[in-house]
């Protein structure tokens, strides 16, 4: 695809996805809190918050690593963009249908760890620092299950390309063929975007963690970038586990959008229902339970694919 069109498409997907995510989150929060609010307000709310952040001054700390601090949200957003580019948005329409799509996704998501750590480290402030280190513990734990469930999905497709993985789900979706895949993927994906129960890096107990010292445009960039990552995760999940563009009646792109929104809604709902997990415990569970389960997923999927 021509680079300009590619940028336009990915930008559109990320922007629309992040906005939809913010609206869903606002609606869910109001629902759980029992605060009725006009729909119009809920829909405009994220734009208002963003506008306020854009009008607020950026603050800084005494002696930050300014360049690394500025880079962090850009890194997250760029990696989310790379991941979105590798996902086919409709049959035969991927921005960059890389033959090793899930490796590209894995690589992009590994670099996300760098971004979050830098965001925590650079402020030279205690709470962001602890948040950054928390994220590394989280990332080292979820990365294996994330890669393994994607490999399991690649087995029946005989290819690492996301397009091929979606095409291989013409008969039945991976969520049915590989029932372990989607739950494990969602746990890892929520960790990736430090969302809901796995938000230790930016948790309330650290006064916002890595984001405790950012304000104004820098905060806006960070919140956007983080949502971009979750959108990329949901998009990839919709393609790899929910059959991507496959679906009756409606066009493929609409199905992709609906499935992505469904996954986003699911993560939002989990975020408002499940308390923050103690990372110390999550690490043990990830290695002793999630990784073995992911390996079982790989072998069962493999045996079924033969």
């Amino acid at each position, binding site marked *: 695809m021509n680079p300009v069109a590619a940028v336009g498409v990915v930008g559109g997907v990320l922007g629309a996805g992040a906005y939809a995510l913010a609206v869903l989150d606002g609606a869910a929060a109001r629902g759980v809190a029992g605060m009725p609010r006009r729909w119009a307000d809920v829909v405009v709310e994220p734009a208002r918050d963003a506008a306020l952040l854009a009008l607020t001054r950026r*603050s800084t700390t005494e002696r930050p690593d300014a360049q690394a601090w500025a880079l962090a949200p850009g890194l*997250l957003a760029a990696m989310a963009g790379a991941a979105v580019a590798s996902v086919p948005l409709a049959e035969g329409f991927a921005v960059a249908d890389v033959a090793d799509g899930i490796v590209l996704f894995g690589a992009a998501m590994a670099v996300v760890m760098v971004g979050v750590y830098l965001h925590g480290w650079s402020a030279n402030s205690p709470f962001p620092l602890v948040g950054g280190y928390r994220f590394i513990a989280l990332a*080292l734990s979820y990365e294996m299950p994330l890669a393994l469930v994607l*490999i399991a999905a690649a087995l029946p497709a005989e290819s690492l390309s996301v397009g091929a993985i979606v095409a291989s789900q013409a008969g039945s979706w991976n969520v049915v063929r590989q029932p372990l895949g989607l739950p494990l993927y969602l746990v890892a994906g929520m960790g990736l975007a430090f969302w809901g129960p796995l938000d230790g890096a930016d948790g309330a107990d650290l006064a916002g963690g890595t984001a405790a010292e950012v304000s104004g445009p*820098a905060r806006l*960039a960070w919140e956007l970038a983080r949502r971009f990552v979750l959108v990329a995760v949901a998009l990839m999940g919709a393609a790899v586990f929910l059959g991507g563009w496959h679906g009756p009646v409606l066009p493929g792109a609409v199905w992709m959008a609906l499935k992505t929104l469904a996954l986003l809604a699911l993560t939002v709902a989990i975020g408002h229902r499940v308390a923050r997990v103690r990372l*110390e415990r999550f690490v043990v569970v990830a290695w002793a339970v999630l990784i073995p389960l992911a390996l079982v997923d790989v072998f069962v999927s493999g045996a079924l694919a033969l």
Partner: protein
Amino acid sequence: MAPFAAALAVVLATGVAVLATRWLPTAVPSELTAPERVPFLGGGLPEVHAWSRYHVRYYAMALLFLAFDMEMVFMYPWAVVFVEEGVLALIEMLMFIVILVLGILYAWREGALRWA
């Protein structure tokens, strides 16, 4: 190579777009006083720099990750040829994985996954 060119364009453009928030007129922290730049401690004042020899307590797990990361990389090419190669591939990979799961088992048994 074309998909990579598109991906590269996307990476650069999204990254730069988010970085561009730094050029918003409000993004220049001009003329901040020293107290405005003090790190937040709930009203308290810091004595020392936060940058320090930070004691991570998951270092054993981090070392385990290094080895496991390597293993995972072998699985990608394996996944591509798996159906083609059939049972042989399944058995070979099973052997490989069992060896590595022994590593996790050992780590778990030794309590290395728990934080120091």
